[in-house]
Protein backbone atom coordinates (compact mmCIF):
# COMPACT_ATOMS: atom_id res chain seq x y z
CA UNK A 1 0.00 0.00 0.00
CA UNK A 2 2.55 2.60 1.14
CA UNK A 3 4.86 1.49 -1.61
CA UNK A 4 2.22 2.59 -4.07
CA UNK A 5 1.67 5.93 -2.33
CA UNK A 6 5.32 6.80 -2.68
CA UNK A 7 5.26 5.77 -6.31
CA UNK A 8 2.16 7.86 -7.01
CA UNK A 9 3.59 10.94 -5.30
CA UNK A 10 6.82 10.81 -7.25
CA UNK A 11 4.96 10.07 -10.45
CA UNK A 12 2.57 12.99 -10.05
CA UNK A 13 5.13 15.56 -8.94
CA UNK A 14 6.33 17.85 -11.75
CA UNK A 15 9.60 18.58 -9.93
CA UNK A 16 11.93 16.56 -7.74
CA UNK A 17 10.02 15.67 -4.59
CA UNK A 18 12.02 15.98 -1.39
CA UNK A 19 12.14 13.26 1.25
CA UNK A 20 10.67 15.76 3.70
CA UNK A 21 7.55 16.15 1.56
CA UNK A 22 7.21 12.41 1.12
CA UNK A 23 7.47 12.00 4.89
CA UNK A 24 4.83 14.63 5.56
CA UNK A 25 2.36 13.14 3.12
CA UNK A 26 2.91 9.43 3.59
CA UNK A 27 3.72 9.39 7.28
CA UNK A 28 6.70 7.16 6.62
CA UNK A 29 10.14 8.07 7.91
CA UNK A 30 13.16 8.67 5.70
CA UNK A 31 14.56 5.18 6.13
CA UNK A 32 11.24 3.59 5.22
CA UNK A 33 10.87 5.82 2.19
CA UNK A 34 14.35 4.99 0.94
CA UNK A 35 13.60 1.33 1.41
CA UNK A 36 10.33 1.59 -0.52
CA UNK A 37 12.02 3.36 -3.39
CA UNK A 38 14.65 0.66 -3.50
CA UNK A 39 11.89 -1.92 -3.65
CA UNK A 40 10.13 -0.03 -6.43
CA UNK A 41 13.30 0.20 -8.50
CA UNK A 42 13.95 -3.48 -7.98
CA UNK A 43 10.49 -4.35 -9.19
CA UNK A 44 10.94 -2.13 -12.26
CA UNK A 45 14.14 -3.93 -13.01
CA UNK A 46 12.51 -7.33 -12.61
CA UNK A 47 9.69 -6.31 -14.92
CA UNK A 48 12.06 -4.86 -17.50
CA UNK A 49 10.59 -1.39 -17.18
CA UNK A 50 12.39 1.44 -18.99
CA UNK A 51 12.48 3.88 -16.08
CA UNK A 52 13.78 4.19 -12.54
CA UNK A 53 13.35 6.55 -9.61
CA UNK A 54 16.49 8.59 -9.01
CA UNK A 55 17.50 11.14 -6.40
CA UNK A 56 18.71 14.27 -8.24
CA UNK A 57 18.81 17.94 -7.24
CA UNK A 58 17.34 17.41 -3.80
CA UNK A 59 14.46 15.09 -4.61
CA UNK A 60 13.10 11.98 -6.26
CA UNK A 61 11.99 11.83 -9.87
CA UNK A 62 11.28 9.29 -12.55
CA UNK A 63 13.91 9.01 -15.27
CA UNK A 64 14.08 6.84 -18.35
CA UNK A 65 17.07 4.54 -18.54
CA UNK A 66 20.15 5.60 -20.54
CA UNK A 67 19.56 2.69 -22.91
CA UNK A 68 16.41 4.45 -24.10
CA UNK A 69 18.10 7.78 -24.78
CA UNK A 70 18.85 7.19 -28.49
CA UNK A 71 15.12 6.96 -29.10
CA UNK A 72 14.02 9.71 -26.74
CA UNK A 73 16.56 12.07 -28.29
CA UNK A 74 14.67 11.76 -31.55
CA UNK A 75 11.52 12.99 -29.86
CA UNK A 76 12.99 16.36 -29.02
CA UNK A 77 13.91 19.19 -31.33
CA UNK A 78 16.98 20.11 -29.37
CA UNK A 79 18.85 18.77 -26.42
CA UNK A 80 17.72 20.10 -23.13
CA UNK A 81 21.35 20.55 -22.17
CA UNK A 82 22.99 23.91 -22.71
CA UNK A 83 26.29 23.81 -24.53
CA UNK A 84 29.19 24.74 -22.29
CA UNK A 85 32.63 25.59 -23.58
CA UNK A 86 35.76 24.42 -21.79
CA UNK A 87 36.26 27.91 -20.36
CA UNK A 88 32.66 28.11 -19.15
CA UNK A 89 33.02 24.72 -17.47
CA UNK A 90 36.16 25.91 -15.70
CA UNK A 91 34.40 28.97 -14.35
CA UNK A 92 31.44 26.85 -13.34
CA UNK A 93 33.77 24.38 -11.62
CA UNK A 94 35.39 27.16 -9.59
CA UNK A 95 32.01 28.58 -8.59
CA UNK A 96 30.64 25.14 -7.72
CA UNK A 97 33.54 24.30 -5.44
CA UNK A 98 34.25 27.68 -3.87
CA UNK A 99 30.76 29.14 -3.63
CA UNK A 100 29.86 31.74 -2.63
CA UNK A 101 32.70 33.27 -4.62
CA UNK A 102 33.46 36.59 -6.33
CA UNK A 103 34.62 37.15 -9.89
CA UNK A 104 38.02 38.52 -8.79
CA UNK A 105 38.71 35.19 -7.06
CA UNK A 106 37.70 33.28 -10.20
CA UNK A 107 39.97 35.52 -12.27
CA UNK A 108 42.88 34.94 -9.91
CA UNK A 109 42.63 31.19 -10.27
CA UNK A 110 42.27 31.25 -14.05
CA UNK A 111 44.62 34.22 -14.56
CA UNK A 112 42.31 35.63 -17.17
CA UNK A 113 39.16 37.74 -17.16
CA UNK A 114 35.97 35.71 -16.78
CA UNK A 115 33.38 38.44 -17.08
CA UNK A 116 31.62 37.18 -20.20
CA UNK A 117 31.64 33.62 -18.98
CA UNK A 118 30.03 34.61 -15.69
CA UNK A 119 27.35 36.57 -17.55
CA UNK A 120 26.72 33.64 -19.86
CA UNK A 121 26.38 31.23 -16.94
CA UNK A 122 23.97 33.63 -15.25
CA UNK A 123 21.91 33.76 -18.43
CA UNK A 124 21.85 29.99 -18.64
CA UNK A 125 20.54 29.90 -15.09
CA UNK A 126 23.36 27.69 -13.85
CA UNK A 127 24.65 30.25 -11.37
CA UNK A 128 23.03 33.05 -9.45
CA UNK A 129 23.99 36.00 -7.29
CA UNK A 130 24.02 34.89 -3.67
CA UNK A 131 24.93 38.23 -2.15
CA UNK A 132 27.75 40.72 -1.97
CA UNK A 133 31.23 40.31 -0.60
CA UNK A 134 32.51 42.68 2.08
CA UNK A 135 35.76 43.30 0.17
CA UNK A 136 36.35 46.65 -1.57
CA UNK A 137 33.86 47.34 -4.33
CA UNK A 138 31.43 44.87 -2.74
CA UNK A 139 31.61 42.40 -5.63
CA UNK A 140 28.77 39.93 -6.18
CA UNK A 141 29.03 36.50 -4.67
CA UNK A 142 28.08 33.73 -7.06
CA UNK A 143 26.75 30.27 -6.35
CA UNK A 144 25.20 27.42 -8.29
CA UNK A 145 21.49 26.84 -8.82
CA UNK A 146 18.98 24.00 -8.75
CA UNK A 147 19.32 23.81 -12.53
CA UNK A 148 23.05 23.24 -12.08
CA UNK A 149 22.36 20.18 -9.92
CA UNK A 150 19.91 18.86 -12.50
CA UNK A 151 22.26 19.39 -15.41
CA UNK A 152 25.04 17.40 -13.78
CA UNK A 153 22.79 14.87 -12.08
CA UNK A 154 24.00 15.82 -8.61
CA UNK A 155 22.00 14.90 -5.51
CA UNK A 156 23.12 18.12 -3.86
CA UNK A 157 26.16 20.37 -3.85
CA UNK A 158 27.86 18.30 -1.15
CA UNK A 159 28.32 15.54 -3.69
CA UNK A 160 31.20 17.59 -5.09
CA UNK A 161 34.47 17.60 -3.14
CA UNK A 162 35.36 20.64 -1.04
CA UNK A 163 38.16 22.96 -2.20
CA UNK A 164 40.59 21.59 0.37
CA UNK A 165 39.73 18.00 -0.58
CA UNK A 166 40.32 18.47 -4.29
CA UNK A 167 43.95 17.42 -4.37
CA UNK A 168 43.24 14.16 -2.62
CA UNK A 169 40.07 13.59 -4.55
CA UNK A 170 41.86 13.63 -7.88
CA UNK A 171 44.95 11.88 -6.59
CA UNK A 172 42.76 8.86 -6.03
CA UNK A 173 41.10 9.07 -9.41
CA UNK A 174 42.28 8.67 -12.97
CA UNK A 175 41.64 12.37 -13.53
CA UNK A 176 44.73 13.39 -11.64
CA UNK A 177 46.42 16.49 -12.81
CA UNK A 178 49.68 15.83 -14.46
CA UNK A 179 49.30 12.30 -15.65
CA UNK A 180 50.15 12.51 -19.29
CA UNK A 181 46.85 11.42 -20.69
CA UNK A 182 46.75 13.92 -23.50
Amino acid at each position, binding site marked *: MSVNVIEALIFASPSPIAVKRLTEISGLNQKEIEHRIKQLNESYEKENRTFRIRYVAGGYQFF*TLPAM*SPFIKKLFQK*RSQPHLTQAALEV*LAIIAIMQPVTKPVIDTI*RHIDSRYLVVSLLEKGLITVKGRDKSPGKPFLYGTTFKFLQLFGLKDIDELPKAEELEQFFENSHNYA*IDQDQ
Partner: protein
Amino acid sequence: MIDFDLDEMNALDHRCRVKLEQFEGPLDLLLYLIKKDEIDIYDIPIVYVTQQYIDYLNLMKKINLDIAGEYLVMAATLLEIKSKMLLPKPTFTEEGEEEEDPRDELVAMLMEYQKYKNVAELLRNKASEESEYYIKGSFPEISYKPEESVLSPMSFYDLIKLAYEILEEPKKEVPNILREGIDIEERIDFVINIMKAEQKLQFVELFNERPTPVMLVATFIAVLELVRRHNLRLKQFTQFGSIWLYLIENK
Protein backbone atom coordinates in the same frame (compact mmCIF):
# COMPACT_ATOMS: atom_id res chain seq x y z
CA MET B 1 59.78 42.78 -25.90
CA ILE B 2 58.70 39.50 -27.40
CA ASP B 3 58.83 40.52 -30.98
CA PHE B 4 61.02 37.98 -32.76
CA ASP B 5 61.17 37.09 -36.35
CA LEU B 6 59.17 33.91 -36.44
CA ASP B 7 60.41 32.71 -39.78
CA GLU B 8 63.95 33.14 -38.65
CA MET B 9 63.21 31.16 -35.53
CA ASN B 10 61.57 28.47 -37.57
CA ALA B 11 64.67 28.20 -39.63
CA LEU B 12 66.74 27.88 -36.49
CA ASP B 13 64.74 25.12 -34.93
CA HIS B 14 61.49 23.30 -35.27
CA ARG B 15 60.06 24.05 -31.90
CA CYS B 16 57.52 26.37 -33.43
CA ARG B 17 55.95 23.66 -35.47
CA VAL B 18 53.25 22.83 -33.02
CA LYS B 19 49.58 22.49 -33.48
CA LEU B 20 47.83 25.65 -32.41
CA GLU B 21 45.06 24.84 -30.04
CA GLN B 22 42.62 27.10 -28.42
CA PHE B 23 43.69 28.24 -25.00
CA GLU B 24 41.57 29.45 -22.17
CA GLY B 25 44.25 31.65 -20.67
CA PRO B 26 47.96 31.88 -19.93
CA LEU B 27 47.86 29.09 -17.33
CA ASP B 28 46.04 26.83 -19.77
CA LEU B 29 48.74 27.47 -22.36
CA LEU B 30 51.48 26.80 -19.83
CA LEU B 31 49.86 23.56 -18.70
CA TYR B 32 49.55 22.51 -22.31
CA LEU B 33 53.26 23.12 -22.90
CA ILE B 34 54.18 21.22 -19.75
CA LYS B 35 52.01 18.24 -20.63
CA LYS B 36 53.04 18.26 -24.26
CA ASP B 37 56.67 17.65 -23.38
CA GLU B 38 55.93 15.51 -20.34
CA ILE B 39 57.66 17.99 -18.12
CA ASP B 40 57.80 17.45 -14.37
CA ILE B 41 55.70 20.27 -13.01
CA TYR B 42 57.92 20.45 -9.87
CA ASP B 43 61.03 20.94 -11.96
CA ILE B 44 60.04 23.13 -14.88
CA PRO B 45 62.93 23.92 -17.25
CA ILE B 46 62.10 27.59 -17.15
CA VAL B 47 64.30 28.72 -20.05
CA TYR B 48 62.83 26.15 -22.38
CA VAL B 49 59.23 26.69 -21.30
CA THR B 50 59.54 30.47 -21.46
CA GLN B 51 60.84 30.20 -25.01
CA GLN B 52 58.00 27.87 -25.98
CA TYR B 53 55.47 30.17 -24.37
CA ILE B 54 56.75 33.20 -26.24
CA ASP B 55 56.89 31.23 -29.48
CA TYR B 56 53.21 30.50 -29.00
CA LEU B 57 52.32 34.10 -28.38
CA ASN B 58 54.12 35.05 -31.58
CA LEU B 59 52.29 32.33 -33.42
CA MET B 60 48.98 33.59 -32.09
CA LYS B 61 49.92 37.10 -33.06
CA LYS B 62 50.93 35.94 -36.50
CA ILE B 63 47.55 34.41 -37.21
CA ASN B 64 45.97 37.58 -35.87
CA LEU B 65 44.54 36.14 -32.71
CA ASP B 66 43.83 38.70 -30.09
CA ILE B 67 46.26 38.16 -27.28
CA ALA B 68 44.72 39.18 -24.00
CA GLY B 69 46.88 41.31 -21.75
CA GLU B 70 47.00 38.48 -19.23
CA TYR B 71 49.15 36.46 -21.64
CA LEU B 72 51.73 39.22 -21.70
CA VAL B 73 51.71 39.51 -17.92
CA MET B 74 52.51 35.82 -17.74
CA ALA B 75 55.31 36.23 -20.27
CA ALA B 76 56.78 38.92 -18.06
CA THR B 77 56.43 36.65 -15.00
CA LEU B 78 58.22 33.84 -16.82
CA LEU B 79 61.03 36.12 -17.87
CA GLU B 80 61.36 37.38 -14.32
CA ILE B 81 61.63 33.82 -12.98
CA LYS B 82 64.09 33.01 -15.71
CA SER B 83 66.31 35.95 -14.76
CA LYS B 84 66.10 35.04 -11.07
CA MET B 85 67.19 31.50 -11.87
CA LEU B 86 70.19 32.80 -13.78
CA LEU B 87 71.44 34.83 -10.85
CA PRO B 88 74.14 33.13 -8.81
CA LYS B 89 72.80 31.71 -5.58
CA PRO B 90 73.87 33.58 -2.47
CA THR B 91 76.98 32.00 -1.06
CA PHE B 92 75.96 32.36 2.55
CA THR B 93 72.72 30.68 3.37
CA GLU B 94 71.78 30.00 6.90
CA GLU B 95 72.06 26.37 7.64
CA GLY B 96 68.84 24.40 7.61
CA GLU B 97 66.97 27.15 5.88
CA GLU B 98 65.52 25.86 2.68
CA GLU B 99 66.24 27.96 -0.32
CA GLU B 100 63.26 29.38 -2.06
CA ASP B 101 62.80 28.34 -5.66
CA PRO B 102 61.66 31.25 -7.88
CA ARG B 103 59.38 28.77 -9.61
CA ASP B 104 57.41 27.90 -6.48
CA GLU B 105 54.75 30.51 -6.94
CA LEU B 106 54.20 29.55 -10.55
CA VAL B 107 53.92 25.87 -9.66
CA ALA B 108 51.36 26.67 -6.97
CA MET B 109 49.31 28.66 -9.46
CA LEU B 110 49.44 25.89 -12.02
CA MET B 111 48.48 23.24 -9.48
CA GLU B 112 45.58 25.30 -8.22
CA TYR B 113 44.32 25.90 -11.73
CA GLN B 114 44.76 22.25 -12.66
CA LYS B 115 42.54 21.23 -9.75
CA TYR B 116 39.67 23.22 -11.18
CA LYS B 117 40.35 21.94 -14.66
CA ASN B 118 39.90 18.50 -13.16
CA VAL B 119 36.60 19.55 -11.63
CA ALA B 120 35.54 20.92 -15.03
CA GLU B 121 36.38 17.56 -16.56
CA LEU B 122 34.44 15.80 -13.82
CA LEU B 123 31.44 18.03 -14.52
CA ARG B 124 31.71 17.38 -18.24
CA ASN B 125 31.56 13.65 -17.64
CA LYS B 126 28.68 14.01 -15.20
CA ALA B 127 26.68 16.12 -17.66
CA SER B 128 27.31 13.61 -20.39
CA GLU B 129 26.14 10.73 -18.18
CA GLU B 130 23.14 12.69 -17.01
CA SER B 131 22.13 13.63 -20.54
CA GLU B 132 21.20 9.98 -21.11
CA TYR B 133 18.50 10.17 -18.47
CA TYR B 134 15.24 11.84 -19.31
CA ILE B 135 12.96 13.11 -16.58
CA LYS B 136 9.39 11.92 -16.71
CA GLY B 137 6.94 14.49 -17.91
CA SER B 138 7.13 17.58 -20.00
CA PHE B 139 9.36 20.56 -19.70
CA PRO B 140 8.34 23.88 -21.09
CA GLU B 141 11.90 24.66 -22.15
CA ILE B 142 12.04 21.62 -24.38
CA SER B 143 10.40 21.97 -27.73
CA TYR B 144 9.04 18.87 -29.35
CA LYS B 145 10.00 17.93 -32.83
CA PRO B 146 7.32 19.00 -35.26
CA GLU B 147 5.29 16.10 -36.50
CA GLU B 148 5.90 14.95 -40.04
CA SER B 149 2.54 16.12 -41.32
CA VAL B 150 1.53 19.73 -41.30
CA LEU B 151 -2.12 18.85 -41.94
CA SER B 152 -4.59 19.44 -39.19
CA PRO B 153 -7.43 17.00 -38.55
CA MET B 154 -10.40 17.80 -40.79
CA SER B 155 -13.71 16.16 -41.44
CA PHE B 156 -14.90 15.07 -44.89
CA TYR B 157 -17.53 17.83 -44.82
CA ASP B 158 -14.94 20.47 -43.99
CA LEU B 159 -13.04 19.30 -47.00
CA ILE B 160 -16.06 19.46 -49.31
CA LYS B 161 -16.90 22.93 -48.06
CA LEU B 162 -13.38 24.09 -48.66
CA ALA B 163 -13.33 22.66 -52.16
CA TYR B 164 -16.63 24.40 -52.93
CA GLU B 165 -15.31 27.71 -51.65
CA ILE B 166 -12.24 27.44 -53.79
CA LEU B 167 -14.23 26.56 -56.91
CA GLU B 168 -16.80 29.28 -56.36
CA GLU B 169 -14.39 31.99 -55.52
CA PRO B 170 -14.85 34.71 -58.12
CA LYS B 171 -11.84 35.00 -60.27
CA LYS B 172 -9.91 38.00 -59.17
CA GLU B 173 -9.33 40.47 -61.93
CA VAL B 174 -5.73 40.74 -62.78
CA PRO B 175 -5.02 44.43 -63.22
CA ASN B 176 -3.76 45.17 -66.64
CA ILE B 177 -0.50 46.96 -66.25
CA LEU B 178 0.11 49.10 -69.26
CA ARG B 179 3.50 49.89 -70.49
CA GLU B 180 3.88 53.57 -70.70
CA GLY B 181 4.75 54.54 -74.19
CA ILE B 182 7.26 57.30 -74.25
CA ASP B 183 7.50 59.12 -77.48
CA ILE B 184 9.65 62.21 -77.37
CA GLU B 185 8.42 63.41 -80.77
CA GLU B 186 4.86 63.26 -79.53
CA ARG B 187 5.85 65.31 -76.47
CA ILE B 188 7.61 67.82 -78.72
CA ASP B 189 4.47 68.33 -80.75
CA PHE B 190 2.48 68.61 -77.57
CA VAL B 191 4.79 71.27 -76.10
CA ILE B 192 5.02 73.28 -79.30
CA ASN B 193 1.24 73.34 -79.67
CA ILE B 194 0.72 74.61 -76.16
CA MET B 195 3.49 77.16 -76.55
CA LYS B 196 1.99 78.49 -79.75
CA ALA B 197 -1.18 79.18 -77.85
CA GLU B 198 0.41 80.54 -74.67
CA GLN B 199 3.66 82.17 -75.83
CA LYS B 200 5.12 81.87 -72.34
CA LEU B 201 4.52 79.28 -69.71
CA GLN B 202 5.91 77.72 -66.58
CA PHE B 203 7.24 74.19 -67.08
CA VAL B 204 4.86 72.75 -64.50
CA GLU B 205 1.93 74.24 -66.37
CA LEU B 206 2.54 71.76 -69.18
CA PHE B 207 0.81 69.18 -67.02
CA ASN B 208 -2.75 69.43 -65.99
CA GLU B 209 -2.53 66.57 -63.50
CA ARG B 210 0.20 64.78 -61.61
CA PRO B 211 2.53 63.49 -64.28
CA THR B 212 4.22 60.12 -63.98
CA PRO B 213 7.99 60.32 -63.61
CA VAL B 214 8.38 58.91 -67.11
CA MET B 215 6.04 61.53 -68.53
CA LEU B 216 7.87 64.27 -66.65
CA VAL B 217 11.26 63.16 -67.94
CA ALA B 218 10.00 62.72 -71.50
CA THR B 219 8.46 66.18 -71.48
CA PHE B 220 11.60 67.72 -70.04
CA ILE B 221 13.69 66.07 -72.76
CA ALA B 222 11.22 67.36 -75.31
CA VAL B 223 11.66 70.86 -73.91
CA LEU B 224 15.43 70.55 -74.04
CA GLU B 225 15.20 69.31 -77.61
CA LEU B 226 13.08 72.34 -78.53
CA VAL B 227 15.64 74.61 -76.90
CA ARG B 228 18.34 72.92 -78.96
CA ARG B 229 16.28 73.50 -82.11
CA HIS B 230 15.87 77.18 -81.12
CA ASN B 231 12.13 76.89 -80.82
CA LEU B 232 12.15 77.65 -77.09
CA ARG B 233 14.09 79.66 -74.59
CA LEU B 234 14.31 78.73 -70.93
CA LYS B 235 14.63 81.02 -68.01
CA GLN B 236 14.96 80.26 -64.34
CA PHE B 237 15.02 83.34 -62.19
CA THR B 238 16.00 81.81 -58.88
CA GLN B 239 17.75 78.65 -57.92
CA PHE B 240 15.21 75.81 -57.74
CA GLY B 241 12.59 78.31 -58.88
CA SER B 242 10.07 77.87 -61.65
CA ILE B 243 11.36 77.22 -65.12
CA TRP B 244 9.80 79.58 -67.64
CA LEU B 245 9.38 78.60 -71.23
CA TYR B 246 9.31 81.24 -73.99
CA LEU B 247 8.36 80.54 -77.56
CA ILE B 248 10.79 81.85 -80.15
CA GLU B 249 8.82 83.05 -83.08
CA ASN B 250 9.80 81.44 -86.33
CA LYS B 251 12.21 83.50 -88.29
